[in-house]
Every structure is written in C-alpha cells, then in structure tokens.
C-alpha cells in the first residue's frame, strides 16, 4: 500500500515535470516580449541604448535552457520569480490570488456535487419522474449555456433589479468579512457549479442506473434492507467511482472556468491573474499560475486515485 502510494507520487512528479516543460515550451511560442507588452507602441520611442538596457532588465535573450533551468530551480525552492509587468514577487501575487480561486473552486465543487449527486441519485431511482426531469433540465442548462452567459446574466440582472453586486466593492477575505465574502463567492460559484452539477448529475445518474441493474443491488433489496440503506450503502457506493472520476475531470474544467468567471464577477483570483499575465507577456506569472493549476489538478487526480483504493478493494492488490 505504501509502496503503491510512493509509486503514484513519483509518477505524479514525472507528470508535473512534463507539464512544466510543456508550459515552458508553449510560452516560448508567444510572439512579442515583456518589453513590447509593457510599453506597447511606446517601445518604438526608446533609443537603442534604452532598448538594450531594458532587454537586459527583462531577461530577454538568455538561452532558453538556462531560463528553464533557473525557473524550475527557483520554483522548487519556492521562489516563483518576479512579475515582469509589476516587478512584484510572483509568490505574493499568487499568495493573494490563490485563496480566492481555491475558495471559488471549493464552493463550485460543493454546489456542483450537491446538486449533481442529489438529482442524479434521486433521478435514477425514479427515471422519468418529476425529480428526474427537473434534474435533466438543470443538466441541459448547465451543459448548454456557457458560463459567461450565465455569469453576465446574473450580474446584470442582480445589479439592475436589486442593485446588488457584492463583488464590486473589492474582495473581502473569508476571515476579514465572512458574510460579505460568502456573498461575493456564492454567485460565481453557482455559475461554475452549474456546469459541474450538469456533468456530475449525468454521471451519477448513469452510474446509478448501471448499479441499479447490477445483481448485487438486487441482492441488497432481496435481503430486506431499508430503502435508505440500499440507496446509499449499496447503490451510491457502487456508483461512486465514476462519480469521483468525473469530479476529478470537472475540477480541470472548473479551474479553466475560473478564468472567465473571475473576469465577470470581479474576483481577484488566479484566473484573472493569468489572463492579465498572458496579455502582458508576463512569463513568470503565466508559468507559475499554470503550473499551480496543473499541480492542483494532478494532486486532486492522485487523491481520487487513492480514494478509489479506499472505496474499491479490488483496486488494492
């Protein structure tokens, strides 16, 4: 068991290294450099001496391999470098953005899982009935309506009808003003969570239907167990593995989705940091944020893997 865990950790590290390489290579393909990004057309106003001095300042023109090496080296020592556009440390930028995105991601996940699993389970128990149809409706909306449409709609509607737009007064951290913080996180989390809910709902429903048709479900009923026990201990437990897998995958989409939603709901999270950084050719920030997203995803997937072995003894040996 421990050895298996170690092996997984190792393969996770290999994956992350690969991710780092890919990110690095993709970023090298971007046209323009930090200089044109930060000065825009004014770059053309600089004298040659100024250009050279600034190129040096921004680290343009170092060999690629050494750039990669020094980046990876410093990442490993917890130093994420310095943002080219704001000249502040990336760690501090990430440090303030990460909790926001984390809270948003967790909130969306909670909303998505609650809606998805409950509708999925109860829908599958009585397919074609009210609960099921309601769930299918939620799923269709969640899958079909892009989050930026839902988000923009929510913001505009709430603001014009209720004069309510809690995010616009600056982000309040959970510890400083929990009530305001919850208001600020709830709607974006709902927007993202709807997509998660749709996917989870369908997975849960399908997995439940599958399990309901399995022989051991019949055995459970035939034993005379109470309905609640049959549903949660036997059926849902049996459906849990695909649901977990889907949750892992959804987390990936969710992290991507924060980019759009943070933009709309004015949340100072990693997604917004990333979009700004891409536009500013702020390589250290883009690299680090993407790596953080990927790490989060990889770690969560490893955790789901571990969860499988806890749920399903067959995967243990």
């Amino acid at each position: 068991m421990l050895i298996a865990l170690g092996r997984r950790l190792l393969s996770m590290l290999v994956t992350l290294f690969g991710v780092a390489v890919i990110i690095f290579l993709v970023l090298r393909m971007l046209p323009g450099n930090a200089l044109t990004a930060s000065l825009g057309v004014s770059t053309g106003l600089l004298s040659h001496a100024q250009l050279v001095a600034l190129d040096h300042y921004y680290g343009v023109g170092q060999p690629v391999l050494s750039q990669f090496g020094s980046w990876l080296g410093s990442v490993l020592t917890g130093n994420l470098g310095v943002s080219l556009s704001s000249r502040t440390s990336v760690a501090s930028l990430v440090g303030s953005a990460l909790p926001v995105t984390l809270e948003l991601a967790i909130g969306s996940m909670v909303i998505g899982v609650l809606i998805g699993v409950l509708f999925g389970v109860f829908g599958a128990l009585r397919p074609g009935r009210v609960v099921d149809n309601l769930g299918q409706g939620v799923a269709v909306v969640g899958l079909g309506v892009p989050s930026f449409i839902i988000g923009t709609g929510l913001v505009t509607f709430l603001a014009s009808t209720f004069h309510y737009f809690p995010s616009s007064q600056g982000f309040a951290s959970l510890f400083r003003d929990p009530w305001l913080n919850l208001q600020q996180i709830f709607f974006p989390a709902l927007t993202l969570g709807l997509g998660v809910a749709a996917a989870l709902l369908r997975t849960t429903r399908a997995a439940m239907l599958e399990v309901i048709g399995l022989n051991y479900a019949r055995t459970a009923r035939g034993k005379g167990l109470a309905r609640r026990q049959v549903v949660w201990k036997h059926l849902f437990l049996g459906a849990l593995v695909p649901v977990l897998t889907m949750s892992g995958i959804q987390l990936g989409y969710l992290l991507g989705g924060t980019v759009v939603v943070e933009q709309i709901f004015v949340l100072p999270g990693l997604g917004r940091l990333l979009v700004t950084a891409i536009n500013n050719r702020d390589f250290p920030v883009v690299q680090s944020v993407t790596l953080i997203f990927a790490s989060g995803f990889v770690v969560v997937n490893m955790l789901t893997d571990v969860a499988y072995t806890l749920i399903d003894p067959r995967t243990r040996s």
Partner: protein
Amino acid sequence: GASVRPQVSRPHAAGGTFVVADTSSVQKLDPDVVTNFLDFQVLGQIYDQLVQYNSKLQIVPDLATSWKYSNANKVLTFQLRKGVRFDDGSTFTSANVVASLKRAVNPKTGDASASFLANVKKIVPEGPYAVKFLLSQPDTSVLNGLTSVNLSMLSMKAMANGTVGKKPDGTGPFVFAGWSPGNSFSMVRNTHYWGGKVTLPAVKIETIPTEQSIASALEANTVQLGLLTQPQVANHLPSSVKVRKILDLSYRALMLQDKTGPLANVNNRRAIACAVDRKQVLGDAVFGQGKVVGPVPLGPFASNPVSAICATPDLSKAKSYLQKAGDPGGFSFTAITSTDLDPSSAAQATVVQAQLARVGIKMNIQNLAGNAYIQDWLKGQFQAAFAYNGADPSPYTMYGRYFGKGANLGVPAGYSSASLQKLLLSGDTAASTANQAKIWTAFGNDLTSNAVWIWLFSAFDYYATAPGVRGFTPSPTNSTSLSALRSTTMG
C-alpha cells in the same frame, strides 16, 4: 426596488473610501516608465510635474510657478514653487528637477517620454528655486512634454534608495497607501498638500474587468466613479448615475504604408480617403459618441482641416482618383486591427470595409492579438493598420516621432517627406502663436492631401458618478483627468 436591496455594508459609509472603477488595473508604480492610461491618471494624483495642462489644454503652472524663454528661445528658465514637501518629508528644490529629469533620460530607466527632452542639452540649477534648461535648438514643445507623468518630480531619497518603482512618493494631492497588482490601488489624502485642503480622505481604484460590470457596480452603489469608454454602456446607466463625457486625448486613424503595393500610389490612398465616410464610422463604431477629426484633433491648433481633399465622402471623386491611379476597378489590401488594444477597431474596420467596397476597393481584415499587433506595427509589417494613437495639444509632440527627421516611429508611419519635416521643425521653433497656427494648418494639408493616413475620429471618455458624488469634473488629459478628486465630496 430599493426596498428589496440586500444589506450590504457600503464602503463609503464605512471608512469613507471613494471607489473608482476601471477595466484595467494599475500596472506599475514607477511614473517614468508607465504607459497605461490608468497609470497616468492615478500616478498623476500622487506626483506633480513642472507644468500641466488646464481644461482648455493650455499650459499652466504646476511645481513651476513661471517660466521664460530667452537667448533666441534656446534657454528656458523655470521658477519653482516653494514650501512643497514630498510624502517622505523632504523638500522640493531645483535638485529634484535636475535629478528627476536625469533619471528620465538615462537609458536604463526606459522612460517612454525621454524623447521629449531630446533637445535639452543640459539642466542647470539656479539656486534652490530656479532651474535653467539649455536647449540645442529652439523648442517650444518641450513645455508640452514636461506635462507628462513620465517626467514627474521625484524625491531624492526615493531615487537614491531605488524605491521609485516600489513605493510612489510624490508631492500631489494624494499619498500612496497600497497596491494589489491587478486588483486595486489605494491612496489617502495628502494632509500637507501645497494646493490646499483635499476633501476625499481616501480613494481606491478597483479593477472591474468589463464595463458592463462597472455599470452594475455603479447601480449597486459600491463604486463612486466609473471610468467608461463604451457609449452603449455609459448611455444606458440609470438616471441617478451622472455621466460626464470628455473627448479622449487620442484619435483613431487608418495608417497606411506607402512603400509597396497599391498603397504606394498616392491616388489610391486618396481614393480611400474620399470613399471613407468618417461620420458613419464614428456612428457605427462608437455610436456617434465622439468627433470626426483631422490630424490635429484638439488643443489650440485643432482648427485645421479634417481633410484637404474630401472633407465629406465623395464617391465619384474617389473613382476618379482610382482612374488616375490606373486602377479603375479598384484594388485590394489588408488592414490589421487588434480588438485587444482597441475594442472598437473591429467595428471601424467592418464599416470601412463596406464603404470601400462601394468603389471597388477590397479591404481584408486581419485581427491580431495585442502583442503581435504591436510587433508588426513597430516593424511596419502591414499594409494598413487601424490605430489608436495618443494625441497631444502640440502637433510637434504628436507627429515629431512619426514624421520628423530620424523619427523613432518613422517605420510604422510609412510616408516621409522633406516638406513635412520642415513644417514640423518650423512649427516647433516658431515664436508666435499665430505663426504656429498657420504652419500647423499647412502641415495638416500636406498630410491629408497626400492621404498619408486616414484620420477618423476621437471618441468620448465617460466619467460616471454614483448618486451623492459632488464636485467631480474630469479634465481632458491623462495626468489631470482625475485632479478634480481633490475637491470632490460624496454624500
């Protein structure tokens, strides 16, 4: 529906912070290197310059109380304001002027406005409260240049400690309080501001990435001032929100490269100039919220013609130019746009494309990511480019870099001619304002009759204030647009 409004703690009720919202964020703190509009606007409230523009775009005193040209306009002497203190407590003297501008021209700084000081040979202090600029040639526009935030007066301590880029330290009405890159920027009032009492105790600049969201925030009354550019958003705010508009200190133009292809032929360019209906472009791209302009859109010389050949669209004239060019059936070229840099450029291009099609000119549109656009633009790698260029009351400041001798931006400008260079120089050195006006009119005629570029329009910027905000009127230039904040109050 005020009755259903949820209970949200309002920032102005608590703490009295005045919140300004913009779609972009404050990107840098070093006033010498900033290029972002918001950076100019915000740092302009912390830093002062020697001179500044007033709302009529005339040059008025700032830290310099008066100035005087002498020696055939080759020496410029400033008298400095006394009793001005930096936020770190140090006093402003002529040493600050010398050191600040020295820092600006140092290549290592990368000051984007260093070129404004190109004709300044030397700066000599004349006692603690006067400085003398020795010029290599007569240059009236150096004064215009000195209004730039890029040429702000810095504290000696900050320069010595290298903290200029980390902690703004100026003499303006507000004092830097905090910065969360990408998100917000806060300032508090400068209690010993030389210009009098500052009413607002604290100002916070919030980044709200879409204008629609800023509108929502204004409706929710969580933002007191929204900086907007989109008329479709600004004009649709509820009546309780007060919107003031002011012509943007920049202009849209279709820049043309005259080196190769059909656009090398002046008559083809003229055909474009006559086929384009600027009024319609203005109407469709920004809903008519702006002004059709020629090469000098604003300032004391703004009177010059919109176009020397076709002030209004004239399709038959356009066709005759095509005839003259030997391309009676029209020709085709490609124009680059970047919706990253100018969201309305797509709409401009869409309209222009349709207009040109009427005379048989086919314009292809290539939309580029911001950075790619800048790169191609700087290298002149385009046939035509929808550009969003900064304007200045001084035509010399505006166009010297494009059409002057050895101009930095000569490559993207494309066209160059000795007559233009001569006009630029004489405009700059001309002694009397009347003379200058005549020269700049000739300059505008030269540009438009050769259809060097097609100048399109300047648009409005919108300053929307929440109910209860009083005393805020925007000023036209970037560094001063928010200067009314010092006397603003909120209910």
